[in-house]
């Protein structure tokens, strides 16, 4: 597949996004690393190229368009707004037979307060543009999972810990097992609790030796007290935990998934609004001709590190499971709040990899 053929495919997709009402936008290739590091954490260093500028400090070769497009919108965007972009992104590969280090992305982002309609607009547009490729759809909704966690009958601290790790399924599961009393208290933690219970935190800190570093005695005492408090908190009840485990593994066609979620909503009332958002999205998708009776839904879809999605998520996948998604996207309302310095706007969007489209369309 030649670069020219891939670019032609990218331009076709870009043209379709513009025809759908998007304003074309550009973004810098060299981005200040600080914002991205702050947002994604240390993991991004393994996934992006970082270089040093003598004046501007650490810079990153654009790993995706979302951050610069959101920043541009938050500075001087209309409300509502639709944007299209096309350009290279750069992904560092830490393995010998890794994926492409640079490739074209074409994207479409919608900033619109009518959320279920905007979700449906983006998904239907992407699915329609790629309809001839016989891709498999995968969808999910991280908002339902977040609502379920927020609705648990447990301490705020435990809920915050679970929410913080919602994109790290293994860690999330380990925390949930512990909070639900399904996993025993690790020996190290039991010993730690015993030591902490022996004396006042300040005395223990003083006895442990001179305190070095920025983390203060107050920081340490606060967490020591939190640990003791947590040890006294009752486990998440078995029925409630069972609902959450059930939710984590829910996989069904969308309409069946909706019926199932409506079935458990009376027992987990906090998910009610998120479930009705899901219902409204399905209606909006159906109105755009998507077969929601067959559309696959997985409650845990899109839970991977470096993601910031907090609502609807989707991927369009090639039959060859070794290939990355041909298209993927989702809702990222919280990201706009982080980047908007106090302001936020509901946002949803996605990207297509034109190189894969060109390949599947019969290049080679």
């Amino acid at each position, binding site marked *: 597949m030649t670069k020219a053929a891939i670019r032609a495919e990218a331009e076709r997709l870009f043209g379709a996004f513009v025809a759908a009402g998007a304003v074309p936008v550009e973004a810098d290739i060299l981005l200040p690393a600080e914002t991205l590091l702050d947002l994604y*954490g240390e993991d991004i260093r393994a996934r992006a190229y970082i270089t040093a500028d003598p004046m501007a400090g650490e810079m990153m070769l654009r790993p995706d368009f979302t951050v610069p497009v959101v920043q541009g919108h938050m500075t001087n965007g209309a409300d509502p707004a639709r944007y299209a972009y096309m350009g290279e992104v750069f992904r560092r590969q*830490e393995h010998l037979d890794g994926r492409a280090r640079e490739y074209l992305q074409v994207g479409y982002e919608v900033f619109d307060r009518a959320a279920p309609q905007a979700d449906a607009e983006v998904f239907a547009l992407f699915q329609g543009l790629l309809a001839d490729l016989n891709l498999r759809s995968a969808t999910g909704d991280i908002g339902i999972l977040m609502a379920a966690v927020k609705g648990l009958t447990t301490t705020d601290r435990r809920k915050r810990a679970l929410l913080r790790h919602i994109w790290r399924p293994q860690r999330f599961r380990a925390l949930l097992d512990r909070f639900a009393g399904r996993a025993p208290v690790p020996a*190290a933690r039991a010993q730690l609790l015993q030591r902490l219970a022996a004396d006042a935190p300040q005395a223990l800190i003083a006895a*442990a030796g001179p305190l070095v570093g*920025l983390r203060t005695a107050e920081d340490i005492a606060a967490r020591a007290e939190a640990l003791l408090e947590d040890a006294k908190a009752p486990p998440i009840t078995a029925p409630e935990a069972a609902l959450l485990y059930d939710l984590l593994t829910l996989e069904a066609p969308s309409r069946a998934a909706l019926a199932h979620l409506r079935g458990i909503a009376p027992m987990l009332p906090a998910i009610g609004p998120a479930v009705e958002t899901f219902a409204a999205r399905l209606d909006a998708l159906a109105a755009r001709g998507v077969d929601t009776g067959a559309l696959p839904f997985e409650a845990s879809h899109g839970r991977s590190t470096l993601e910031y999605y907090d609502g609807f998520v989707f991927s369009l996948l090639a039959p060859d499971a070794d290939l990355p998604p041909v298209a993927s996207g989702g809702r990222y309302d919280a990201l706009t709040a982080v980047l908007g310095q106090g302001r936020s706007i509901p946002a949803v969007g996605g990207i297509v990899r034109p190189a894969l489209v060109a390949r599947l369309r019969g290049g080679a």
Partner: protein
Amino acid sequence: MLKIGVPSKGRLMEKTFQWFGARGVTMRQTGQEREYSGAVDGVDGVELVLLSAGEIPRELAAGRVHLGVTGSDLVRDKLADWDRQVADWAPMGFGHADLVIAVPAAWIDVDTLDDLDAAAAAFRAAHGHRLRIATKYHRLVREFLTANGVADYALVDSQGATEGTVKNLTAEAIADITSTGETLKANHLKVLSDGLIHASQATLFAARAADWSGPSKASLSALAARLGLPVPAVSG
């Protein structure tokens, strides 16, 4: 010629020479004491290349040396998919050092990675930046922390005197090698109970990318016989 890269100075070089010497392969420096050239006696067709221990992983990956002696920590940190680039031929039983995560001893609330993660989240909320971990082993530390679900930290580079970074307020915790733990203790740090990232030792590695055709293959077989080791599966 089969080229073997060996650390060019200090105890690592002496111990390496002793290890080979005990197996009937004599390595020695030639020329003046400080000159970086050497010779190998006991097996034909083997050339000694004296290199900085830190550069040996790179030379192995490029196939510019066939064999190399260096710390297993350096190979794992510097080479992506290290075991596909080099074969781990023989652990040599010296140069032991553990790469560990250490935090201030006064952190009475932190004993495990799980605690570190929770402390990092609270630290970030209270101080406005991620909890900094000073290290020179970026890949090893990052992969270890990611695998263990630790978030809200940032690695800061420290090429030496890493134990001092906490006191100097340039980091809140460290990831560094230690053999006895004395330096950590002297700097008021303690090792997390599950904070062992890698137990390193000097290791003889074979380069998969080196030219193993013809004479170097024969020399490898002869060397393996002399060392009493199976021939490593790198020579095609």
